[in-house]
């Protein structure tokens, strides 16, 4: 999650920022929920959290894909080497 926040602030343009935050959403939240499962022990709540991990793992990249697809359709210019930050 820290890496995602750093990437959100430091990366130069829209595409790479979404790239950084999409990674931390998917894997970071999954790891946090798995940590909750280990802390809580195996019971019904653990099963629900595991389902939550699975659905976040499926839906979060899809949401990022949808955002990027719309940005590419609306012709947001990607950053090239030597451009200034946006």
């Amino acid at each position, binding site marked *: 999650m820290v890496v995602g926040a750093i990437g959100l602030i430091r990366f130069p343009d829209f595409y790479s920022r979404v790239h950084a935050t999409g990674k931390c959403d998917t894997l970071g939240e999954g790891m946090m929920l798995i940590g909750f499962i280990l802390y809580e022990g195996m019971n019904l709540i653990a099963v629900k959290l595991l389902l939550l991990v699975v659905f976040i793992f*499926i839906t979060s990249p899809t949401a990022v894909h949808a955002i990027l697809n719309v940005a590419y359709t609306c012709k947001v210019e990607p950053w090239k080497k030597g451009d200034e930050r946006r």
Partner: protein
Amino acid sequence: MKENVVIRTISRFLVPFIQVYALYVIVHGALGAGGGFQGGVVFAASFILMIIAFDLPYVRQRFNYKWIVICSVLGVTIYATIGLLCLIPSGNYLEYGAIEAALGIPHLHGYLIDAVEVGIGITVMAAMTSIIYDISNKGGESS
């Protein structure tokens, strides 16, 4: 407007899970958090996801205005019928304990609460879906 294949596949995969979760919220409403309104809204959210991922006429063809009218009237009818049934054994409106005491079936008021929640859920689902249809309509034919 056709969205691309990833979004369509994932939403086709997710819509049944959202609907099952909505039914879980409706049925769980008698015991804990949740209830008819929340479950109905979650159920309508699955239709909104289908409208976003596919296009509006496709969803309309599956669930058109005739079914919206039928569903909203059906939900209100279930609610009012169970409420009025409680008047027969001289209870108040929606006083489930009167029916349970008159018929002598244990835990009957739990089932009656569930039935009322299902009625609320059907009505809320139909109303939310019709609101979304009217908002996302771009003009043209209205069927």
